[in-house]
């Protein structure tokens, strides 16, 4: 069987003098550290959606793949901003590392014979899930944050189910390979590698896995150079996108990030995620005849003037989107707890389902837990930064809840239903 088909199936085809167990292991361990952050923050985001509450579950067929950790807290207010910002930005930062890792092991895809034992055949089958799962998760996430919905499925179930396939394969890969990777990393001194230029760069010693080229070409780049290249790529991805998670002058650094845009300098000129027009909300239905229905023991209709006559409170709270961007603004409105009392419901006992005027798209309604309703900073906001809300930011009234995912801050609210049992 020696030789096999020509071309990439022959070991002599792969000539880079840099490929080897040390390089692959260094890239693998960096990738692993980053993926742990992405996985944990991703699963936390699943919990943040409070899928147990009515209408909140975006993955109703999840079976055992869903889980309940705890009622999503309202403190610290910046937690979802941090975790989801990290999920997206660390993911983007890892793209060059993932690509370099795939480059470093590509000769093994064409290894001939395809498997030398049953064990190897079974393990290679799991690599299909590992590589497919990794690229599937990165691709769907990256396209989704650019609102480029070209995939023939809803993002939520696909990204959650893809995550479980990827994580299962990743755990097995780590269990099987980690000891070997640690040995490989220890086989060379990192500091010495970082002092070795291209002229002194030699191949790693031959390895049983066939990563090291049998007939290496002269090096055109040192290992130091390759690591700087990958690290530089990651630094660039980070620097051009992280700005969409902060406010102030640094936000302008988000040159290649979908939601770090500038709208102007007015009180309502901050990032819009979905415009009124895109969700079928018109100026006419938000005008003077708009009424908020507050449902509890009975059903009360309130005009915007009625709401403005109630005790108003002002809090500076972040709004943080599942797509990774966030911004902090100063919101003024009526406490959800006061509206609950008005509906004859004691705050802390029942949650609320907020229903929007929006006609199309996801999240036309969202349910909040009793704890979220009871928090004094949870508002039905009427103003932002001292001005009336603009139509795109939810005029005449929108929900704003500390630490809730962006889509749970329902815009253009037409009904608050406090009959939600949350225990």
């Amino acid at each position: 069987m020696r030789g096999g088909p020509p071309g990439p199936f022959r070991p002599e085809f792969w000539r880079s003098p840099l490929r080897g167990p040390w390089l692959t292991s260094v890239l693998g361990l960096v990738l692993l550290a980053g993926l742990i952050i992405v996985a944990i923050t991703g699963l936390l985001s699943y919990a943040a959606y409070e899928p147990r509450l009515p209408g909140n579950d975006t993955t109703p067929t999840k079976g055992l793949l869903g889980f309940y950790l705890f009622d999503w807290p309202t403190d610290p207010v910046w937690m979802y901003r941090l975790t989801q910002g990290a999920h997206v930005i660390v993911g983007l930062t890892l793209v060059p590392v993932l690509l370099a890792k795939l480059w470093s092991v590509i000769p093994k895809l064409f290894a001939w014979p395809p498997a030398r034992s049953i064990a190897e055949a079974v393990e290679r089958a799991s690599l299909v899930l590992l590589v497919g799962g990794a690229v599937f998760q990165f691709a769907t996430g990256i396209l989704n944050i650019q609102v480029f919905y070209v995939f023939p499925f809803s993002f939520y179930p696909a990204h959650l189910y893809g995550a479980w396939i990827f994580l299962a394969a990743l755990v097995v890969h780590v269990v099987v390979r980690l000891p070997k990777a640690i040995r490989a990393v220890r086989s060379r001194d990192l500091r010495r590698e970082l002092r070795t230029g291209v002229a002194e760069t030699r191949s790693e010693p031959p390895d049983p896995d066939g990563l090291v080229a049998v007939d290496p070409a002269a090096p055109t780049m040192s290992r130091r150079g390759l690591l700087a290249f990958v690290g530089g790529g990651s630094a660039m991805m980070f620097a051009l996108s992280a700005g969409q998670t902060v406010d102030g002058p640094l936000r302008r650094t988000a040159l290649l990030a979908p939601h770090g845009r500038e709208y102007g300098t007015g009180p309502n000129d901050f990032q819009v995620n979905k415009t009124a027009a895109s969700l079928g909300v018109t100026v006419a239905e938000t005008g003077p005849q708009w009424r908020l229905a507050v449902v509890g023991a009975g059903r009360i209709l309130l005009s915007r003037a009625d709401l403005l006559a109630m005790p108003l409170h002002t809090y500076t709270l972040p709004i943080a989107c599942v797509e990774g961007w966030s911004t902090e603004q100063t919101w003024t409105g009526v406490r959800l707890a006061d509206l609950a009392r008005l509906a004859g419901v004691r705050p802390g006992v029942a949650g609320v389902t907020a229903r929007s005027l929006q006609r199309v798209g996801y999240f036309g309604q969202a349910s909040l837990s009793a704890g979220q309703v009871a928090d004094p900073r949870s508002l039905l906001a009427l103003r932002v930064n001292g001005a009336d809300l603009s139509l795109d930011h939810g005029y005449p009234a929108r929900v704003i809840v500390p630490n809730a995912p962006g889509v749970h801050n329902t815009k253009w609210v037409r009904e608050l239903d406090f009959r939600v049992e949350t225990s």
Partner: protein
Amino acid sequence: MSRWAGAYGAPLWHLLVLVACFMVAGYVATRVVAAGIWMGFVAWFVAAIILHDLVLFPLYSAADTAAQAMAGRVARPRRTRRLAAINHLRVPAMLSGLLLLVWFPLILGGAERNYRWAVGLSTSPYLVRWLLITLVLFGVSGLLYAVRRRGSRRADP
């Protein structure tokens, strides 16, 4: 080596963890079917498996081979100089390509319809930004090359 390991090629626990992995993946597959998205999911998953190894890799390695041949022809005199030249070309080119790979829906305007509808702004600034960043990458790389070349000339007259 035990008889098991001789026949299978690895200890028993190896098979057990892999079977567990396939069981989880199999269960996930039933959820994908239940969600009614299995055809699109499988198509995208298969595409994800081959995207790097059979699409991106042939493209960037062919571009790299071509660039190396070109750099070899342009700067013949000394080997080390040619090496420096190729890296000052391939690094900015690959970084620019990386940005395009990740942000092409914004840069090339594929997401324009959805994006303008959702965000209320056009994607048009992204192409300009990407071109400017690419220009800066090549500019900085060229400047570093010039500095290194001068340095090496002075050190090695």
